[in-house]
């Protein structure tokens, strides 16, 4: 019995995380979104209008099938291995790949045998079975996340000098290598589900208007937007230096 238990303990990281840094998210019931009544108390800024975040209301419970998801965002190094024309500063190999269009993110995930996660899957992976506000819990801790106020708190964050810069270039701050904030992990052990870079998901925000959904907030965003329920809408052709992604995989 002890031998079997030992083998399971040894093999668990391989089964659960896999060789490519994936984690198995078991089937369950996801708590998605936020109730309007609790929204204003979660925004953390008197200037943030609850109406601006009403697209995440009301909260819902949705059954989710088991799936696997990357433990970290896809890095520049990993993305470059498939997308040969991806350019990035050479000192940012371990940073999340950014300036990636939705189509390119989708193509990459399919090339590695996966797909982009749906919004429900992403939010479940971030909030866990209890439907936490942030990946690590219900209280905000600046040390757990890279967001707009991190520039002063975490020296060394860098935007980098990309070929195609975007509008965040003039604002202070920037990213850090993936998987550096241990205390910011989600209940399933995923890194950087809050802040860092926004992540494309495989769910339309508004199909009629051609808008895709992004989740998680970025190094540019306020506290309100690093809550896991926050939804951002943008065109799939957009490239920004705070738009990245991670892949999901079917469990079977």
């Amino acid at each position, binding site marked *: 019995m002890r031998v079997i238990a030992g083998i399971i303990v040894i093999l668990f990281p391989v089964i659960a995380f896999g060789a490519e840094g994936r984690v198995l998210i078991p089937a369950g019931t996801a708590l998605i979104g936020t109730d309007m009544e609790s929204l204003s108390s979660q925004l953390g*800024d008197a*200037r*943030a*209008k609850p*109406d*601006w*975040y009403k697209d995440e209301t009301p909260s819902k419970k949705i059954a989710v099938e088991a799936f696997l998801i990357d433990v970290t965002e896809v890095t520049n190094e990993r993305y470059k291995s498939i997308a040969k024309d991806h350019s990035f500063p050479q000192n940012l190999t371990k940073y999340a790949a950014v300036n990636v269009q939705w189509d390119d993110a989708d193509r990459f995930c399919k090339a590695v045998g996966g797909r982009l996660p749906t919004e429900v899957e992403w939010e479940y992976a971030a909030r866990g079975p209890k439907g936490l506000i942030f990946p690590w819990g219900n209280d905000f801790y600046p040390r757990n996340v890279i967001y*707009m106020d991190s520039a002063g708190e975490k020296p060394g964050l860098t935007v980098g000098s990309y070929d195609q810069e*975007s*509008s*965040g*270039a*003039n*604002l202070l701050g920037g990213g850090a290598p993936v998987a550096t904030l241990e205390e910011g992990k989600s209940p399933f052990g995923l890194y950087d589900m809050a802040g860092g870079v926004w992540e494309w998901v495989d769910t339309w925000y508004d199909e009629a*208007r*051609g*808008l895709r959904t992004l989740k998680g907030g*970025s190094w*540019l*965003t*306020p*506290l*309100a*937007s690093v809550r896991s329920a*926050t939804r*951002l*809408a*943008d*065109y799939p052709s957009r490239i920004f230096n*705070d738009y990245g992604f991670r892949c999901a995989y079917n469990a079977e």
Partner: protein
Amino acid sequence: MTSKSVLLLVSFIVVSSVMGAKYIFLVNAPPDSVMGVSHSLACPCECPMVLEDCHMSCGLQWKNQIGEKLTAGLAKDDIVAYFYKRYGSESLLTPAQRFAGKWYQVSRGGYPVKDMVLFGMIVLVWTALLNTVLVMGKEKLQSLTKK
């Protein structure tokens, strides 16, 4: 100081307050237009301007995004929400920031010529009217006193 000078000064102060408030706070364009939405946002570049006055590349990039979203049928509030979600209070203006932004715009030569001509005309007309009313009132008072 003559009474006419005092009147002119009072007119100047009153009209400049009203016109200044209009220039700083009121939208001169329809709300669902690029300029109408830009009026509510700060310029993301290294200047303290209101986005509607900003012509730097990063400001134009934001205006371009606003135009695309308006074309797709998004309303002003949806677009302001998008910018807040992405950039937080960096994208918004307090009344003091708006005042500073407009002052910066005027001080670097971005005079609102149409508004200034209108301002001059209103000051003159208002002063003349006030003067006429006061002169007539004074004459009326004198005639009543004589009776």
